[in-house]
């Protein structure tokens, strides 16, 4: 029984023991980035760990903050990112990238990309809660940002982006409704994280789709070869496919994975806040678990995981709990009646391959 998602609920659901923490001796590290001009307070993190971090070794402060932290009020998103990245990826050196203060003269997401191109030594795993509808961005910008994400993949950085909180999305193109993919979630060079809920809200049981979980098919990027087999199988077998006019079936499909995104406890401005929901929550959780796997890899002399998708799809999602119940939201019209895609066996455009079963995932990703 639980009254909202806390680190111990996460660790129990994803089969983490109190031993599953960083060693504190490796050069492992992780980072979260948010561009909302929000601040986080170390004091909130310390209080969060006092409240919820009692049964696992953890670090009580971040290692490095990039971008000035104002004296402003802490933001829920900034607090949530740090608190769940550092409790899932416990006892691992953590950086926080936070956009500049009040009079930001630039585009914070662009500044983060420039930082990646200007620092040789960066954390291995980066969780990023940022996205815009593909159709609102110029193709020059989308293509160039995609190249920046490719540069990061070539360097072995694992970039995890939230899949978004509007389900399949919806907009009207020449009078007809279509689903609305978001970017960078739709980039073929990142791992995109969707969201789930517990089937029984107050019990740690199996997970179903969180109806807000972003997912679908890119209108800009063609399907990468690494996901051809999995997506083709979904398209040929899903009993609940929306009309083909709503989506681009040949596009890069996302998300790739998922984690709980519903009903989190967060401490912000010294106040514990319940029921915070969004894929901005599931992304740091999944990122933290990948950091733990990197820890084992680094301690056994292997390179970090890097760009995960080719391996993830090759292994057909081994080590993940497959989510097969539920659909996410979309257009409110008489044709689809608010329903987007539905989850099903194997990969699907709502929860990807599913949510992490840590010991099994560690086993499949440790070698080579």
């Amino acid at each position, binding site marked *: 029984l639980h009254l909202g998602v806390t680190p111990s609920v996460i660790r129990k659901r994803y089969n983490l023991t109190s031993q599953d923490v960083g060693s504190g001796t490796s050069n492992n590290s992780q980072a979260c980035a948010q561009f909302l001009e929000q601040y986080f307070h170390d004091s909130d993190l310390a209080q969060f760990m006092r409240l919820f971090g009692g049964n696992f070794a953890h670090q009580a402060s971040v290692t490095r903050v990039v971008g000035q932290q104002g004296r402003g009020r802490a933001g829920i998103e900034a607090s949530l990112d740090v608190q769940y990245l550092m409790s899932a990826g416990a006892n691992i050196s953590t950086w926080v990238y936070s956009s500049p203060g*009040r009079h930001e003269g630039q585009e914070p997401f662009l500044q983060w990309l420039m930082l990646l191109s200007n620092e*040789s030594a960066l954390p291995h795993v980066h969780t990023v809660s940022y996205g815009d509808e593909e159709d609102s961005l110029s193709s020059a910008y989308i293509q160039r940002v995609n190249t920046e994400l490719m540069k990061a993949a070539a360097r072995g950085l694992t970039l995890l982006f939230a899949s978004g909180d509007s389900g399949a999305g919806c907009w009207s193109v020449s009078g007809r409704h279509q689903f609305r993919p978001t970017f960078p979630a739709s980039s073929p060079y990142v791992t995109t994280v969707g969201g789930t809920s517990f089937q029984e809200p107050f019990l740690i049981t199996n997970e179903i789709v969180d109806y807000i979980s972003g997912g679908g098919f890119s209108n800009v990027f063609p399907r990468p070869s690494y996901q051809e087999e999995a997506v083709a199988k979904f398209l040929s077998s899903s009993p609940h496919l929306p009309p083909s006019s709503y989506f681009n079936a040949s596009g890069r499909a996302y998300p790739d994975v998922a984690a709980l995104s519903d009903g989190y406890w967060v401490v912000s401005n010294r106040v514990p806040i319940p029921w915070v929901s969004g894929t901005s929550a599931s992304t740091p959780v999944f990122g933290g678990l990948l950091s733990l796997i990197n820890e084992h890899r680094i301690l056994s002399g292997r390179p970090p995981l890097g760009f995960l998708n080719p391996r993830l799809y090759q292994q057909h999602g081994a080590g993940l709990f497959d989510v097969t119940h539920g659909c996410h939201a979309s257009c409110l019209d008489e044709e689809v009646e608010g329903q987007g895609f539905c989850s099903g066996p194997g990969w699907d455009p709502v929860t990807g391959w599913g949510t992490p079963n840590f010991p099994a995932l560690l086993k499949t990703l440790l070698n080579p």
Partner: protein
Amino acid sequence: SYSPEPDQRRTLPPGWVSLGRADPEEELSLTFALRQQNLERLSELVQAVSDPNSPQYGKYLTLENVADLVRPSPLTLHTVQKWLLAAGAQKCHSVITQDFLTCWLSIRQAELLLPGAEFHHYVGGPTETHVVRSPRPYQLPQALAPHVDFVGGLHRFPPTSSLRQRPEPQVTGTVG
């Protein structure tokens, strides 16, 4: 001249308001995304280091390797720097890969450099963030087309959070 981003949304996001034209002597920073090289090769390398069946698996590039691969051509670097210098751009700084250049200019200089741009002050978002943006599309001299992908800091507004605090899940009597 040509417009590098004709398809970029420039409408004001909900919750933002215009505070009027910016003063021509004010300063702002703009980011120039310079055209890179060898992107095909970069894509091949990403496949090689990310595929567990590849002999290159896990043999990642360093930032310096990536810089050597994608760095803009000398012609691009020279053309863009000459263009910015002539416009009076100051305090330009680059990154190790040299494919981004951030410079400070006065509003007047920026509007001369980027024909069509018109800078306004805006405030909005959950924390009343102030930004300077252009609601009108900008153009670049045709000669720059092979050298600049886009200019950042003109049209895109800071993102807003999509986290929500949902009321506790409605439970039909299963928990006392």
